[in-house]
C-alpha cells in the first residue's frame, strides 16, 4: 500500500537495498496467494510483526498504515461472509491485511529516491527502449502527490460543504479532477524547468 509516511531510522530494514526489499515484497505477496494455508498466513503475519519490530515501528505506525483501508477490508469481509463462510471471510481479509501491511512496511523504510534507485536497478536489464528513468520518476511522483491530492480533496469538500453540496459526488469529483489535471500540467512544467533532460 502506498503511503507518504517514510519514517527515518537506521534499522537493518532501513539500510537494506531497495531492490531487495521490492523483490522480497513481491515474493512474500506471491507466497501468500499461492500457498493458501492458515499456517502460511500465520507465518506471514508473524513475519510482518517482526518486520515492524525490527524497523522500530510501533502499533501507531501500523495503525496509520492500515486505517485508510479499513472500509475496503470491511466490504471484502462482508462480501465473503455473504457469499462463502465466516472462516473464508476471516482468511481472505487477514491475507489482504497482511499484504497491505507488508507494502506499508516497505514504504515506511524506503525513501522515494531510494525506491527510484531500486526500480532502476530492477529495470537495468530491461530493453533499451524502456524509458527506465521516466518510469522511476513517475513512481516517485506518486509518493509526493498522494498527500497533495488528499489535501485538494479536503479543500474541495470544504468549499462544497459551504455551498451545501458535500453529498453531491459530481460537485466533489469535477473540481478535484480539474485541479489535479492543472496541477499535473504545472508539475510537468516545473520538472522541465529544473532538469536538463
Amino acid at each position, binding site marked *: 500500500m502506498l503511503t507518504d509516511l517514510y519514517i527515518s531510522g537506521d534499522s537493518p530494514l532501513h539500510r537494506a537495498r531497495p531492490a531487495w526489499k521490492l523483490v522480497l515484497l513481491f515474493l512474500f505477496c506471491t507466497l501468500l496467494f499461492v500457498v493458501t494455508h492458515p499456517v502460511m498466513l500465520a507465518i506471514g503475519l508473524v513475519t510482518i510483526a517482526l518486520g515492524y519490530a525490527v524497523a522500530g515501528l510501533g502499533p501507531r505506525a501500523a495503525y496509520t498504515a492500515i486505517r485508510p483501508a479499513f472500509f475496503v477490508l470491511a466490504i471484502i469481509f462482508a462480501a465473503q461472509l455473504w457469499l462463502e463462510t465466516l472462516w473464508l471471510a476471516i482468511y481472505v481479509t487477514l491475507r489482504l491485511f497482511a499484504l497491505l501491511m507488508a507494502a506499508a512496511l516497505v514504504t515506511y523504510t524506503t525513501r522515494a*529516491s531510494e525506491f527510484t534507485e531500486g526500480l532502476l536497478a530492477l529495470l537495468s536489464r530491461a530493453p533499451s527502449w524502456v524509458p527506465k528513468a521516466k518510469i522511476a520518476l513517475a513512481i516517485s511522483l506518486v509518493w509526493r502527490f498522494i498527500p497533495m491530492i488528499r489535501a485538494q480533496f479536503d479543500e474541495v469538500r470544504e468549499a462544497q460543504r459551504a455551498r451545501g453540496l458535500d453529498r453531491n459526488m459530481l460537485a466533489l469529483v469535477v473540481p478535484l479532477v480539474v485541479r489535479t489535471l492543472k496541477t499535473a500540467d*504545472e508539475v510537468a512544467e516545473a520538472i522541465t524547468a529544473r532538469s*536538463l533532460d
Partner: protein
Amino acid sequence: MGMRFDRVCVTKAAREILSEITLELTEHRIGVIGNNGSGKSTFLRLFNGLETPSSGTVRFGDTTDDLRRHVGFMFQNPDNQIVYPMVEEDLAFGLKSRKLPKAEVTERIERVLHDLSLTHLRDRLTHQLSGGEKQMVALAGVLVTKPDLICFDEPTTLLDLRNKMQFMRTLATLPQPAVVVSHDLDLLAGFDRILHIADGRIHADGRPEEVIPAYRALCEM
C-alpha cells in the same frame, strides 16, 4: 553577461502574445509588471526556454542553446515545483540530470541548506512544511543548480506578510541577477530596472521611481 531578446514574437492559436520584444537585460534586479493577460508570464518563460519564440531569438550571453543550464526558474506555487516527498531528495533532483558526482551533490545540498538556514528541514516531508518553508525549499532547489540568473514568477502571491518579508530579505542577498514578475509593487520598489508589459509589448522601461507611479496612475484610470 545578460539576456538579450532580439525581435521576439510569441504567437499562440493565431493570437500574438508577445510582439517584437527587443531588449538587453544586464541589471542585477529587474522587475516585470503588467495586468493579467498582458504577456508578462510568457515573457518570463522565454528566459528558461519553457516558451519558444515564434520568431526572433533569446540569448544568454552569446548562446541561444541550453538556456535552462544558465537560468533557474521559481514558480508561483512551490507545491507544484517540489517533486520529491523529502527535502533532501528534492534538492538532489535538479542535480541528477547534470550528472554530477555523488560527493558534489551532497556538498552542494549541504551548502545551500546552510546558506538559506534550512539545515533543520533536510529530512522533513515536503508536504508537511509551511507555505514559507516550501517557498524557501523551492528556492533552494533552484540555487543548488548554481544558475547564472534566476526568474521568479509572482513569488510572494501565496505568502503571508512575515514570509514575504523573509523572502524579500533572502532575495536581496542572492548574488545572482534576478528577474521578478510581480503584482507586488513594494517588492519591486528597490529594483534597478522595471519593465511594464501591456498587450504583449514593452509599454514602459526604466527606473522604478519612473515606471511604477506611471503604472499605478494607469491602473487608477
